[in-house]
């Protein structure tokens, strides 16, 4: 009987220990895009320190790269903070960022990547890895979210995070000093995926970067999900309730043989997204064609435009933001 008793005690203890180990391992190292941790630190620092009504940019990396907040500030006459990060992050992550920093009088501009309109509630392995490591400090860990992330984890990741050192990172003062110094320079040289390529407003505005993955891409087939629509409706209602406003707009895209907005076929695909949003009470501003650029304006991927294209993008965005009030 003592054998069975030991067996059961061991099983119960392990059942308690493993989830506990997982919770304790949150925020520790795992293979993920750790550079985003410092990037978000600098962005959030600025967002928290602007006291007057501001414009917050929220999306994946199409607006982290190739977005000139200073130019937009000059055009619209209010401070801009760019909270755009990575298109692999969940729609909920971006929405939470917007809700966290929106204050009365703020305007939230979301040039979401088109894939976000087809978002599903399921977590991807990438999201789990990133949120469980560097992203842990940016998450609101309710029991439901904890359970969801735990169920989408693996033992390998638990062991990795338990056994491997804490995430290496630079001192906060160094991060802030670097982005401040970059702000004075304007368009920067490529320093890799790092806050070292970013200014204090949260833009990575580059003249050049080594090309890596500038392949043709369709960007969207026009599919929108109920989940995405519901989450954006909820965000809009929340913002209105707190005296802020939401403006959806189009992301930067590359004109290629799979997605060319001068063609009727691709225009109708984009129009179908717009129609669905409109029916749901979500307006999307600007002409998507004004944010589509030729291949030579792209940096290292087909999502990131260079500083020259960013100026044209800001011009177009400034105009349609003024038009839409």
């Amino acid at each position, binding site marked *: 009987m003592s*054998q069975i008793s030991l067996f059961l005690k061991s099983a119960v203890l392990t059942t308690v220990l493993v989830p506990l180990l997982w919770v304790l391992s949150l925020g520790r190292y795992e293979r993920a895009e750790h550079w985003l941790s410092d990037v978000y630190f600098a962005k959030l620092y600025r967002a928290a320190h602007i006291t007057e009504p501001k414009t917050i940019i929220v999306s994946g990396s199409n607006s982290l790269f190739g977005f000139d907040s200073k130019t937009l500030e000059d055009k619209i006459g209010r401070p801009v903070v760019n909270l755009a990060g990575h298109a692999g992050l969940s729609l909920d992550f971006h929405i939470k960022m917007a809700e966290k920093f929106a204050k009365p009088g703020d305007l939230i501009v979301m040039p979401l990547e088109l894939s976000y309109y087809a978002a599903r509630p399921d977590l991807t392995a990438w999201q789990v890895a990133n949120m469980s490591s560097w992203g842990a400090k940016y998450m609101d860990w309710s029991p439901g979210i904890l359970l969801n992330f735990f169920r989408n984890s693996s033992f390998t990741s638990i062991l990795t995070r338990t056994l491997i050192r804490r995430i290496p990172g630079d001192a906060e003062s160094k991060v802030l000093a670097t982005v401040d110094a970059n702000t004075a320079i304007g368009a920067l040289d490529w320093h890799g995926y790092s806050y070292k390529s970013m200014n204090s407003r949260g833009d990575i505005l580059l003249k050049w970067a080594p090309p890596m993955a500038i392949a043709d891409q369709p960007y969207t087939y026009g599919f929108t999900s109920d989940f995405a629509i519901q989450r954006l409706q909820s965000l809009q209602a929340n913002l209105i309730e707190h005296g802020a406003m939401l403006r959806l707009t189009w992301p930067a895209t590359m004109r290629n043989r799979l997605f060319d907005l001068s063609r009727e076929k691709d225009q109708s695909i984009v129009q179908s997204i717009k129609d669905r949003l409109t029916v749901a009470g979500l307006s999307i501003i600007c002409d998507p064609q004004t944010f589509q650029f030729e291949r030579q304006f792209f940096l290292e991927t087909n999502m990131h435009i260079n500083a020259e294209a960013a100026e044209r993008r800001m011009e177009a965005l400034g105009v349609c933001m003024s038009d839409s009030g």
Partner: protein
Amino acid sequence: MLFNSYEYLLLFLPTTAAIFFLLNRFVSTTVAKLWLVAASLAFYSWWGLAYLPLIIISILVNYGVGTALGSSYLAPFSRKAVLAAGLAFNIVLLGYFKYANFVVDNTNSLAGTSFHLDRIVLPLAISFFTFQKIAYLIDSYHRKTVGYNFLSYALFVTFFPQLIAGPIVHHREIVPQFSDPKAALLHVGNIATGLCILSIGLFKKVMIADTFAGYVSTGFDTEGALQCVDAWAASLSYSFQLYFDFSGYTDMAIGSALIFNIRLPINFNSPYQATDIQDFWRRWHITLSRFLRDYVYIPLGGNRSGELSTYLNLFLTFLVGGLWHGASWMFVIWGGMHGVAIVCHRVWSRYGGQMPAALAWFVTFSFVNLTWIFFRAKDLNSAKRVLASMINVLDGSLLKMFDIQQRHATLLIGLGFVIVLFAKTTVEFCTEARNLERTSVVSGAALAISLIAMSFVTAGVSEFLYFNF
């Protein structure tokens, strides 16, 4: 019902065992056995009721034929005729469900005919219980089953731990256990050991085999170019996946049965430690090898008619073994390769051939690993693709085995080698009297970790590989 499901582990097994022992204690052993047969049929029907009549009819027919063969009322000629009819019944049943589509497809492609036969779904476990019944009939003919009653026979066939994918138990080692009064008593030691074996088996399946599965799919289930390092990772991963999957299943079967005081035969004995191919087949799927030896190889003539005839019998036995796994030329090729290897080994041994143990192990493992490619690949082109990529060492990808993308697979395969070469078998580990406390702690933790891992969305519940056979 899958062994690696919450329904089985947390509901079916404990409930069935509890009621079994309560009935034994407070009602009667006959009612307890009836309960076990009913529970086993419910276990079998979990996937669907469609084939429940098939297994029931098969039990009735075989018990009837076996009883007739064991009686003294039939003349010798009639007994032979009854045996032939009984064997034909089982073989035709298996042949229809397992090989009819294969025969029609091959006839059409060879003769240019256009016979049509709808796809026949293979009834679960038919390959396993057909073999058991064939053995029962032949032994009944030899009057080795006298005194078996219907309930014991039905329980022998349907007993759920071994019903789906073996071990292929022989009536001689199971039926007497059901009749033993001690089997009706709750035995704490057996329950503890059974839980230990079950838990380690579950761990092997959920935590090890299913982890290798991802690398196997990368190599075998994708199209296009395959790097040498990926092909090796896929091939070795499959060797480990199959072993941990099937031996994990067998452990769970042995552990489950032991909770009911029934000892199933071991099916694996560290097969990847084998230093020749004959040694391998003495360690891998032992109960299948035993069946093929007793009911195919020996009836074919065994080694009684000279050396050449022995070689032919060995080769044919392995062809049958290959075909038993499934109606596919890939299994025939796999069986044929092992048949040739066994013949070569016999010739080598006959002429006193020897080699150092390490080299012998390397040759044996390499051969087994190579043949698993044919076992796993969906067709010959797919097997050739993996093989060609494995040979293509000049692509330089092997040098990247410790790069960040490959490191996980490389380490996992390294761990696989360490376990199969140096770890004890599950039964050895769980029955080591000196360390019972340690085994209880380790197996309890293994069960908990596996149950938690089963809750992971990415893991899900995956079937055991041998369910397909």
